[in-house]
């Protein structure tokens, strides 16, 4: 080895050790800087999605609602609305408190939408409410991520940044799902969550339907010699209704005594499962915050009515995006499953309630 070679060997060895020492002392900071940069990039994306949703909401409100004043300021206020959950130190009776608050929120949102879009009909009003709720969710996601990002930076709290970075792919997935839902809500197309109402709609084809409770309808049909009462949210506007209250009314007020209740709903699939696959089980198949499920379980328990559930599997993204063909095919398979359950669990002339749970946007009755 020549003299030049020795010098370079020393230089590279010094550089190598300098790198090791720097990494030893500043490794965590380097890692933090990389994570922060990654969060920033996604935050910019979230801001873009939030702004896009807001602009779309303003545009659709102007088109459909034809307001006399510019609705932008009112929409901005709407996007910042919130719900304070009831105190849960003494959880007895919390369901009714929460249910009341949800009712107030729903009425207040509908009222606001009616004011900012005075020319919209009932169907468009419900679709607009769904669109604004999706925009509100995107705004909320953006604000929460920004909050934790800035807090992590300001306090140099490694653990906050680390947790935020680790959960970010899931948050982005959710944000993209809401972004994909905007088009469907704006145009009134059926979404994946409408699998339950679609099944109910198939059963109600050509039958007379009656309104019951808040935003719910029901009709009578016959299946293999059994009388069936089919329950769904009133469409085709974006609406989930209150199936729990409707079921309570059917049983407590109208005096129906079904032998079984079959609930059909779209449910989140596990990774690796196929969209549109159907499963059945026992229990109240209904999502949401839990108040409607509580009501249904209460009434079923009180009258000792067996509760069966049929689910159509899909991802979160698919649940709020336009309904895919696989889900339509899944609904047909779910219908066969419901018929099998009814045949096996009931006798002829029995009364059965079938509840199609989900958002009925783009699906009438």
């Amino acid at each position: 080895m020549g003299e030049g070679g020795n010098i370079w060997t020393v230089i590279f060895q010094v550089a190598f050790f300098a790198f090791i020492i720097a990494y030893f002392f500043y490794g965590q900071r380097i890692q933090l800087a990389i994570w922060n940069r990654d969060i920033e990039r996604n935050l910019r994306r979230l801001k873009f999605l939030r702004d896009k949703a807001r602009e779309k909401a303003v545009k659709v409100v102007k088109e459909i609602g034809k307001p006399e004043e510019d609705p932008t300021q009112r929409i901005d206020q709407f996007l910042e609305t919130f719900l304070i959950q009831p105190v849960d130190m003494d959880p007895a009776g919390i369901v009714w408190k929460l249910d009341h608050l949800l009712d107030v929120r729903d009425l207040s949102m509908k009222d606001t939408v009616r004011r900012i879009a005075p020319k919209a009909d009932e169907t468009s009003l419900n679709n607009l409410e769904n669109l604004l709720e999706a925009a509100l969710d995107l705004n909320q996601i953006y604000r929460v991520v920004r909050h934790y990002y800035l807090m992590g930076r300001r306090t140099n709290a490694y653990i906050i940044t680390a947790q935020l970075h680790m959960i970010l792919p899931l948050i982005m997935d959710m944000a993209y799902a809401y972004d994909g839902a905007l088009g469907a809500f704006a145009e009134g197309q059926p979404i994946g969550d409408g699998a339950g109402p679609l099944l109910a709609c198939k059963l109600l084809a050509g039958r007379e339907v009656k309104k019951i409770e808040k935003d719910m309808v029901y009709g009578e049909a016959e299946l293999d010699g059994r009388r069936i009462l089919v329950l769904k949210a009133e469409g085709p506007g974006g609406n989930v209704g209150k199936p729990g209250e409707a079921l309570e009314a059917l049983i407590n007020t109208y005096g129906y005594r079904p032998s079984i209740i079959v609930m059909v709903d779209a449910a989140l699939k596990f990774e690796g499962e196929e969209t549109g696959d159907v499963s059945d089980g026992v229990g109240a198949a209904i999502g949401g915050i839990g108040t409607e499920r509580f009501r249904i379980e209460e009434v079923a328990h009180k009258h000792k009515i067996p509760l069966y559930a049929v689910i159509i599997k899909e991802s979160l993204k698919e649940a709020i995006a336009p309904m895919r063909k696989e889900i339509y095919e899944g609904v047909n398979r779910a219908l066969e499953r419901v018929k099998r359950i009814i045949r096996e669990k009931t006798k002829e002339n029995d009364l059965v309630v079938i509840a199609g749970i989900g958002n009925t946007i783009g699906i009438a009755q």
Partner: protein
Amino acid sequence: MAGYRARPNLGLLIILILIFLFMVMAGNFFGQEELFGERSASTFLGFIGLILILLLFFKLMAQPPAVPKTRIVTVLKCEKCNVKNIRDFKQGDYIPKQEGKCPGCEGPMYIEAIYPEEPPRKKPKLKF
């Protein structure tokens, strides 16, 4: 809808450029017989480095693929003869809206489905 995608790392590109420069410098200063044995080996490694850098550079510069706009279709079905007719979705369409008459039997048609028309997707084979 755009998905969550990892972008090529600019830092990695810089590191690769540095490695490439190091290779070139090492080839010149150490002499071919000291570090690489032969000049051709050093040229080969430099060439590989250059290819890697160019590949990453093009990936970095490339625009994300345009998201194909899915066409939402409305499927109309005849109540009598079950003939199906597919057309583009129009605002105001809903299931099971009655619309028009069957071209075959003149029976009433209704909207049976509304869904995005998607190209057939190749599903990845799962090992589990």
